[in-house]
């Protein structure tokens, strides 16, 4: 166990030494890996932000029922009763016109305009959630409610949220494909790096085999080179993504001020960052492993 640990430490030192021996080549490799990985992970970070944006707005589709402005409290009560007795309604919420106006004043940047109104132009409204949120069921419910007296306008809200959801799913798929392709490229890059390393270390490998080194002993430093390169590449990718988000946020801050909304891109969270870096390290290890299993066998002492 102690020997095993000692050899790991020793292999890692050797790997670091070899990476340092060719600083330029190592840095180029690490940058290639970093850039390749930053592309899908950067897109992923953007997507996560869009996702949380659509989450804030509410992904569940809802039906808004607006009454005529002349509707009386008795009409409201009648509608309330109909909704309560309708089997396809899960729950509903009554938004009186005064409250709607106050919310409008508070939430958007047009408070001044609203203030200047002499009378409330908003109708009473109901926000209705259906038991079955499939597009057909919602459409049927909407048609039914439209036929009720005093229903001035019935609107299927959040359909766009569903569309956004579908778009996000598509985006995720594209990122997944991109990530797969670039992962393959990364494995190929490491494979080749390690192949070159093995060729330049040919004498050393031959001598080690002659004096009784096991395959594992010879393989280990190369695996460490691949893994360390992947790890460093992952870190570079993280820095690229974080830096880009920082730059974008500066630009967004200006834009958001002009539209008087509060919107900022979030950085990758701890979990995603760890996955990014570890996955990159794993890909490096995989490339090195493939290369080593393929090339070490070809070097036999003669």
């Amino acid at each position, binding site marked *: 166990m102690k*020997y095993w640990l*000692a*050899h790991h430490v*020793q292999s890692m030192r050797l790997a670091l030494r070899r990476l340092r021996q060719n600083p330029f080549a190592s840095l180029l490799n690490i940058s290639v890996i970093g850039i390749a990985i930053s592309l899908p992970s950067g897109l992923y970070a953007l997507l996560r932000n869009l996702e949380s944006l659509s989450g804030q707005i509410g992904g569940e589709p809802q039906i808004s029922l607006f009454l005529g402005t002349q509707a009386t409290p008795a009409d409201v009560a009648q509608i309330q009763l109909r909704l309560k007795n309708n089997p396809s309604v899960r729950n509903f919420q009554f938004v009186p016109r005064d409250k709607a106006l106050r919310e409008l004043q508070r939430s958007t940047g047009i408070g001044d305009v609203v203030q200047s109104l002499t009378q409330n132009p908003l109708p009473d409204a109901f926000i209705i959630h259906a038991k079955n949120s499939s597009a057909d069921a919602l459409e049927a419910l909407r048609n039914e409610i439209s036929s009720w007296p005093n229903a001035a306008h019935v609107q299927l809200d959040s359909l766009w949220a569903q569309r956004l959801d579908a778009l996000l799913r598509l985006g995720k798929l594209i990122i997944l494909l991109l990530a797969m392709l670039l992962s393959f490229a990364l494995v190929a890059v490491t494979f080749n790096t390690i192949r070159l390393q093995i060729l330049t270390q040919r*004498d*050393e490998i*031959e*001598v*080690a*085999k*002659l*004096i*009784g*080194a*096991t*395959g594992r*002993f010879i393989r280990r430093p190369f695996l460490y080179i691949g893994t360390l390169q992947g790890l460093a590449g992952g870190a570079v990718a993280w820095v690229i993504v974080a830096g880009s988000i920082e730059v974008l946020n500066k630009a967004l801050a200006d834009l958001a001020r002009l539209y008087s909304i509060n919107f900022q891109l979030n950085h990758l969270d701890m979990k995603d960052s760890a996955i990014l870096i570890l996955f990159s390290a794993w890909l490096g290890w995989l490339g090195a492993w493939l290369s080593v299993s393929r090339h070490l066998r070809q070097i036999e*002492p*003669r």
Partner: protein
Amino acid sequence: MISLSQVGKRYPGGYDVLRNISFTVQPGEMVAVTGHSGAGKSTLLKLIAAIERPTRGSVVVNGQNTSKLRASAIPYLRRNFGLVFQDHKLLFERTVFENVVLPLQITGYERKESGKRVRAALDKVGLLDKEKTYPITLSGGEQQRLCIARAIVNRPAILLADEPTGNLDAAYASDIMGLFKSFNQVGVTVIIASHDNAMLLRLNPRLLRLDHGELAS
């Protein structure tokens, strides 16, 4: 300890390097393999160290038949041997110390203990003051002695030397032969292959003479 029975080695193309070789080496023996160049001396040593496998017959080392060993067991077999090569096979980007410590790293010695052993081995071949230099700065004779230090640092039971004095002048050569004699005196089995009969005879060894791939005496 080492036993060959009816060993033959044929290289692709039908060329027989060795034919029908049988002999046994007892622990502590000093054996010299002689013969003209191309007689199969190097091949014979390579068969013993499992660098090559015989095409006929069997090579048994410490009770293990080298032809039947799995590839993963070969490294452990090789640790029985100290190998000395005519071309030294030193690693030129490592220092003298790092070259000698390599076998100890492979078998997993502790740092402190291995440092002592490396210095003892270097002391024995007279290179103790060069441990921090690089092999490229050493003379041919010193490089050969460095190769020997690496071969003995693990205290192997068997020392295999292929033309250890091949490129050296007479003074260096007898120097090297003296080293082998001293290892043999402390119980190490030594097998030397050389075409330099005069030099070998001074060791007073058991002679195995190869002639066109066959054992002559």
